């Protein structure tokens, strides 16, 4: 899947502003971005629903504008709503989609049963979709997008509004597919989801890609590991921060609300011991100390500019909430 210089405007609003994207076959690409960054528009263009103003894109080797029929033959789309017929049963839905993919009636029925089995819907296949839970609907939706086992699958926020259990079920289904060689473009607001599923991540903001790489590469872009210290009393925060600063780590960031001091460290092997010793010397009681990798949330906020705004607010003169020592 390749996209080059995609642009799309609605009136004066530029939704996509020269978006480039490459997704190798058989991998999962996570498309991350704040609301309105252009995620759904990108999926719309790549799945032939929308025509780009300029730029070109190929999916499964076919041009999305000039060869849209061939593209449609090889893709599945799972949009933000479960796009299935509520009145029909799960099986009837899948048979209908199979027939619309031009499977013969017997083959469509066989495929429907296979998919119901695969997505653990065999027991409820005969019930109208109205009676399904959110997770079941989503699984049926996934099944419907996979009638032809398409080589390319678009998942536009596939787990929005699902409970954690249903989310895990959907994730498992997606992993299964990828195991079978499907290429997936996934948009999501949940960074954990991208972390769990994606081989590579493209962060988009205001219609273009602002960063890309594996989740690990993105995380290392904003520095090394982190140590978070939670102190028992808020009045110990300043002392803790000063003690931590003396260990030679980066400038500590203090969050008074959670009684937490956070710091970036370079050498995870020695840093933890150094910090513990420094706190002990300063006589600070730490309730919790944790050493961790940066989360994608931190990467995301850093890259999409939300962090820049907060960092300015948190400057030494304003001190609204955090204290920068």
């Amino acid at each position: 899947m390749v996209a080059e210089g995609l642009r799309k405007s609605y009136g004066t609003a530029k939704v996509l502003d020269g978006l480039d994207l490459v997704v190798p076959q058989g991998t999962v690409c996570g498309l991350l971005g704040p609301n309105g960054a252009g995620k759904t528009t990108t999926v719309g263009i790549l799945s032939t629903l929308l025509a780009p103003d300029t730029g070109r894109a190929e999916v499964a080797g076919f041009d999305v504008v000039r060869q849209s029929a061939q593209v449609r033959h090889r893709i599945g789309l799972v949009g933000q709503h479960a796009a299935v017929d509520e009145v029909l049963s799960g099986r009837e839905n899948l048979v209908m989609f199979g027939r619309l993919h031009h499977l013969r009636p017997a083959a469509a029925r066989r495929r429907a049963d296979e998919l119901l089995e695969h997505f653990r819907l065999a027991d409820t296949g005969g019930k109208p979709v109205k009676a399904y839970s959110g997770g079941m609907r989503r699984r049926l939706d996934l099944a419907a997008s996979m009638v032809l086992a398409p080589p390319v699958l678009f998942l536009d926020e596939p787990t929005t509004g699902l409970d954690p259990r249903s989310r895990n079920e959907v994730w498992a289904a997606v992993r299964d597919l990828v195991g079978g060689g499907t290429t997936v473009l996934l948009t999501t607001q949940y960074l954990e989801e991208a972390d769990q599923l994606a081989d590579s991540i493209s962060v988009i903001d205001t219609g273009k890609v602002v960063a890309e790489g594996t989740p690990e590469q993105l995380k290392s872009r904003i520095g090394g590991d982190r140590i978070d210290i939670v102190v028992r009393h808020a009045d110990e925060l300043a002392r803790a921060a000063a003690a931590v600063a003396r260990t030679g780590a980066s400038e500590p960031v203090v969050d008074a609300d959670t009684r937490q001091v956070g710091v970036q460290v370079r050498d995870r092997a020695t840093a933890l011991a150094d910090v513990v010793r420094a706190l002990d010397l300063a006589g600070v009681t730490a309730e919790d100390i944790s050493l961790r990798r940066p989360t994608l949330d931190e990467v995301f906020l850093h890259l999409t500019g939300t962090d820049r705004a907060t960092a300015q607010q948190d400057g030494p003169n304003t001190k609204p909430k955090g204290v920068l020592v």
Partner: protein
Amino acid sequence: MSILLPELPAGPLSRLRWALADGWTVTLRGLLHLRREPGTVISGLLFPVMMVLMFGYFFGGAMQVPGGGDYREFLIPGMFVMTMVFGMGESVAAVAADKNRGVTSRFRTMPMAPSAVLVGRCVTDMLHSVLGLAVLFGVGLLMGWEAHGTTAATLSAVGLLLLLRFALTWVGIYLGLLMKGPEGITMVQTLEFPVGFLTSAFVAPATMPGWLGALAEWNPLSSTVAATRELFQNPGWGGDSWIAQHATVMAVLWPLALIAVFFPLAVNRYRHLTR
């Protein structure tokens, strides 16, 4: 779970075969809805029946048919037309629901004939309308209404009604594709009343204020009402304006004009939907 990709159609003939097959699949879906939700269907069928009973028996006593004649005989052809109008609301609602739930988007990313979704909708609605007409025919007969014309005339009248419904289906599909939420649908269904009443279906336009009467006479629905009254040989209200004198021709021309406008609009809108 590996599947052989069916071949894409190559020539115009196989494309046509795909289009027909897909149209039929979507139609079957619509028919399954009718079977699965008989309640919705029945209430849809009962609504015109209720109207006919209300107008026939509550208000009918106070109504005068210009030139004499039985009001219920006058009313029934008008109600046939109104049934076609109410049916349009169902087209709007069905199309809008699919669009807003993302079902239309899924169809549009599938290798199916683009015409199939709209054609399937149209065929379903037409079948639904035939059912509705049949029920109202039965109720009419029970109320003492009769088609006095020849069988050919009666069939022509039914043909005109279905032609009108066909035209309104495309209006409905277009409006449905425009709808962003349920509010619009309510508005369309509410507007059906003034549009339907501003015709010769219930009263003679001659009894309305001059300008309003003229509007009612030129309402495309009035032409079908007047033409079917003629064909059923039910009492009409006459009228000596040009439009009233050419009701039968206009009952063909008006729907054709609506189709000429709304069919391309609907197809274009479907192809350029943004969600």
